[in-house]
């Protein structure tokens, strides 16, 4: 009780200092008056009485101080005092303050940004209740993209019934495409991205709807059930003007009135979790019976029963999955395997190493910043050594001076942290609202409490780190030396100089590590950009075509008309139609050489593309042999196919594949051409099996329709003309965008681009900071040696020798730093080896270039002070003292 009371009173007293002080003054005065009075009454003279009273009282100032300490918050008083003093000195030295705060803001800001990214993608749990029970299920080996990552409707429903590990088991249709639906009813149709999800999809994830419901009924999941839809939050906000009474209203998609049954919360972003870099607008029920015989359709997610481990569930899946039917009706087994992943691991596992490297890179930046600040503070401290010596001589304890210096560095780092936080907020806002970086969960990035705590941690540790060295250095300085030191050489002596040189060397070493990592990653990135994709993305663009033909003949006629009109547009060189673009959605079937025997599972799935004549030419794929598809390739008895080189080599080794017959499922097709391999998923993955089928042929149906246009005009210029032509042919054509094919390629390499750019920016920052460090130290040593240089020049040293001497000093530091950095880089580069593409972790060219770069930068940083030194006028220098 008494303790709490005392703390309370101490705080009150702290805020009523003046009143308490005047009260104390009055009390002390009355004390002395009483004492004097008593002494006089004992017969002393007034003078004597007064002296005696003061003697008995002891030190009045001391009594005041003790009383203040006993009643208030003395540590806070000291802190405030230090703060006031710090602010005063920092304001006086505004150049130093500005530079320090800027450097710190960059270092700390970069750390907050990267921490937020790492926290969002790696550390924070997924935004679902009990997210650790969520599991992604995918085949153990995937050879053919989406078709091999999915399961058939029958298989999924059998597993739902038989398993004991999952409380809920669900999935979505993996074969959707952006803008596959259109919102009709008012003016030009708007493209909408729609996806079918199983009835219990949102229930399994634990997503609670903002309004209405997010579960579909059994009736709604039937082929002729009532059409219903659940809207995403952004779509509801944007297209429905956030209508609060939307539930139960019907909106038109492709002229089908569809009832809105629910709106999802803002926190749920399908793309962020399952398809980075895309946005899903509306969710509709998966119609089990409609697609039951369409093969592998569903991409799976499950929620484990409480207490079931991933290993137990995996064991059960290993037993059950091979027994599941591909189709009960057609009577074949799916030959399934399943690997269970923690959903979070599945989403971000492959990014872990990149993110950790990034984290390490900003950590290095912060270290470099700290070293730089230490150096600046040391230089400043040297100039202030007299001040501290004076304070020490007047009785300041060493701890008090260190405390004062630490207050200064903490104030600097706090200011840097605040500015850095502002920078980070802007960057994080940008990252959350861009759509072109295909990193999962990025749209949910924000600066939250964890990031703020991290900021405080970083700011305090940085402040302590760069403040402690100069602080101890100064406090341990020899008082007498500092006081009697001559005006010119108020340095901390030889010790400080070598300490500063050590700091600069470590800075160069750190920058070297960063630069080498950035160099290797950059080189890898260039290699990726340099890959022969098998098609020519530049100058090609694609627009989604409204697609509703009854049969192949009508489709061919429609396509022909569309291509005819588009090719007539001035500036268009050529055009073609495909159902899927490279590096976009994909599906796969099987292909085999007819009449040959293959082991089950020997042949991988083959990506198939249903295309019009001229498509290969429009997207810039290269025919190696044979001919392109023509409009006449529509024989119902004889299908034709173009395969890629990989397929041709495997199915017809050492033979001419042209005119051979291939079996595509139950259909026979004559090979009419071979094209060069195309990188169909990313530039980094090797090409798989690909085949191209005629859209005019009745045997194969396209899944979608995209017009690819090759033109010298930019897509934005072409867009209105193309759209007008399409809408003239078909008023139902939605207002889709004509998108450059390059965007697809860029998106597939965007994670690498993102990491490379960030690491390169950090490395550049590190280089600049190191250059500043070198400049600072050399320049300082020149100032310090002005007299010495003057004497040398008076004794006959030429400008050239002086300059060379200083440059040699710079080079010594640089080469030491580079040597240390090179050794550290070798260790670090093996850590990032798995992130490199077509580049060895010890790539000599990169190492050599970075060494030369560092040496060159060091020389430039040293040259400026060297030049100044060589201009020293000996007469002036010698007179100076």
């Amino acid at each position, binding site marked *: 009780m008494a303790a709490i009371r005392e703390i309370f009173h101490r705080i009150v007293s702290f805020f009523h200092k003046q009143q308490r002080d005047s009260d104390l003054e009055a009390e002390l005065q*009355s004390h002395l008056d009483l004492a004097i009075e008593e002494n006089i009454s004992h017969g002393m003279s007034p003078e004597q009485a007064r002296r005696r009273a003061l003697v008995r009282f002891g030190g009045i100032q001391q009594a005041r101080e003790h009383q203040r300490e006993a009643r208030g918050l003395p540590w806070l008083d000291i802190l405030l005092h230090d703060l006031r003093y710090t602010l005063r000195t920092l304001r006086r030295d505004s150049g130093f303050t500005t530079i320090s705060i800027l450097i710190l803001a960059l270092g700390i800001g970069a750390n907050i940004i990267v921490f937020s990214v790492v926290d969002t993608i790696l550390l924070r749990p997924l935004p679902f209740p009990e997210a650790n029970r969520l599991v992604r299920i995918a085949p153990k080996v995937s050879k053919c993209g989406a078709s091999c990552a999915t399961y058939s409707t029958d298989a999924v429903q059998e597993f739902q019934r038989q398993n004991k590990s999952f409380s809920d088991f669900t999935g979505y249709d993996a074969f959707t495409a952006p803008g596959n639906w259109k919102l009709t009813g008012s003016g030009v149709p708007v493209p909408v991205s729609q996806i079918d999800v199983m009835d219990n999809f949102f229930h399994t994830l634990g997503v609670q709807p903002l309004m209405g419901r997010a579960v579909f009924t059994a009736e709604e999941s039937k082929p002729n059930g009532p059409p219903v839809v659940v809207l995403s939050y952004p779509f509801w906000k944007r297209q429905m003007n956030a209508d609060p009474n939307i539930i139960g209203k019907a909106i038109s998609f492709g002229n089908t009135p569809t009832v809105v049954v629910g709106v999802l919360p803002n926190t749920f972003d399908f793309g962020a979790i399952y398809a980075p870099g895309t946005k899903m607008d509306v969710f509709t029920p998966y119609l089990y019976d409609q697609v039951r015989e369409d093969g592998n359709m569903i991409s799976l997610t499950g929620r484990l029963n409480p207490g079931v481990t991933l290993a137990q569930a995996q064991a059960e899946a290993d037993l059950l999955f091979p027994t599941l039917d591909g189709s009960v009706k057609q009577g074949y087994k799916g030959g399934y395997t399943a690997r269970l992943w923690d959903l979070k691991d599945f989403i971000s596992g492959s990014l872990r190493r990149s993110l950790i490297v990034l984290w390490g890179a900003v950590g290095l930046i912060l270290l470099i910043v700290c070293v730089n600040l230490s150096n600046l503070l040391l230089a400043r401290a040297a100039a202030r050594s007299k001040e501290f010596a004076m304070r020490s001589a007047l009785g300041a304890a060493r701890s008090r001076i260190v405390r004062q210096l630490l207050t200064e560095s903490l104030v600097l780092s706090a200011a840097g942290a605040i500015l850095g936080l502002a920078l980070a907020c802007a960057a994080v806002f940008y990252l959350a609202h861009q759509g072109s970086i295909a990193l999962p969960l990025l749209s949910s990035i924000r600066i939250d409490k964890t990031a703020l705590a991290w900021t405080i941690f970083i700011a305090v540790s940085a402040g302590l780190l760069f403040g402690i060295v100069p602080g101890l250095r100064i406090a341990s300085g020899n008082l007498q030396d500092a006081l009697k030191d001559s005006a010119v050489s108020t340095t901390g002596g030889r010790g400080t100089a070598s300490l500063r040189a050590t700091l600069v060397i470590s800075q160069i070493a750190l920058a070297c590590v960063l630069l080498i990592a950035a160099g290797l990653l950059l080189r890898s990135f260039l290699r990726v950009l340099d890959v022969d994709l098998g098609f020519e993305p530049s100058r090609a663009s694609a627009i989604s075509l409204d697609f509703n033909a009854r049969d192949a003949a009508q489709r061919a006629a429609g396509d022909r008309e569309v291509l005819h009109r588009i090719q007539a547009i001035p500036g268009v060189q050529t055009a073609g139609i495909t159902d899927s673009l490279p590096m976009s959605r994909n599906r796969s079937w099987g292909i085999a050489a007819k009449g040959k025997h293959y082991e089950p599972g020997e042949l991988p799935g083959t990506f198939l593309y249903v295309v019009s004549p001229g498509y290969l030419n429009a997207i810039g794929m290269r025919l190696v042999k044979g001919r392109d598809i023509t409009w006449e390739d529509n024989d119902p008895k004889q299908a034709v196919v173009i395969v890629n080189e990989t397929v041709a080599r495997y199915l017809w080794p050492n033979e001419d594949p042209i005119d051979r017959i291939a079996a595509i499922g139950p259909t026979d097709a004559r090979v009419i051409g071979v094209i060069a391999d195309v990188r169909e998923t990313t530039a980094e993955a090797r090409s798989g099996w690909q085949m191209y089928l005629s859209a005019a042929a009745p045997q194969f149906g396209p899944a979608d329709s995209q017009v690819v246009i090759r033109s010298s005009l930019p897509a934005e210029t072409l867009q209105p003309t193309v759209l007008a032509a399409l809408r003239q042919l078909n008023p139902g054509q939605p207002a889709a965008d004509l998108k450059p094919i390059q965007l697809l390629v860029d998106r597939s390499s965007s994670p690498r681009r993102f990491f490379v750019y960030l690491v390169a920016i950090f490395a550049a920052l590190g280089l600049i900071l190191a250059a500043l460090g070198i400049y600072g130290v050399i320049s300082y040593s020149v100032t310090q040696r002005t007299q010495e240089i003057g004497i040398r020049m008076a004794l006959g040293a030429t400008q050239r020798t002086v300059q060379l001497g200083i440059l040699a000093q710079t080079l010594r530091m640089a080469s030491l730093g580079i040597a240390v950095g090179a050794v550290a880089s070798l260790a670090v580069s093996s850590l990032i080896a798995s992130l490199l593409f077509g580049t060895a972790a010890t790539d000599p060219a990169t190492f050599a270039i970075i060494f030369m770069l560092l040496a060159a930068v060091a020389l430039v940083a040293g040259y400026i002070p060297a030049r100044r030194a060589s201009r020293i006028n000996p007469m002036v220098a010698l007179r100076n003292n």
Partner: protein
Amino acid sequence: MPPEKLEKLEKLDLLQGTLDLMVLQTLAVMGSLHGYGIARRIEEVSGDEVLLNQGTIYASLVRLQQRGWISAEWGTSDNNRKAKYYAITKAGRRQWAKDTAYWNRLSTVIARVLATSTEGGL
């Protein structure tokens, strides 16, 4: 220690916290008193054996007051001077009883320990 040196013992330095107890004791016995009065009283009772700068009691007074053990009020002295008068509170009396008991036990024990060590030394 040779016995003759004991005679020349200097004034006692106050142990940490003992001044607080002396103030409490003074107020408990004397009732309401001002700072000077308390200081004088302690000097008198201790027979001038305590080394007390009178000023130091003000830290003690404010500490006791903030803990709620004594109360303070400005008043007028017998010879018509304004002075701050302190009085012990109920909580202060409890604390005084507690501290006194503790101090008595401690000094008994210390005395006993010192006695045995002298005997052992012989």
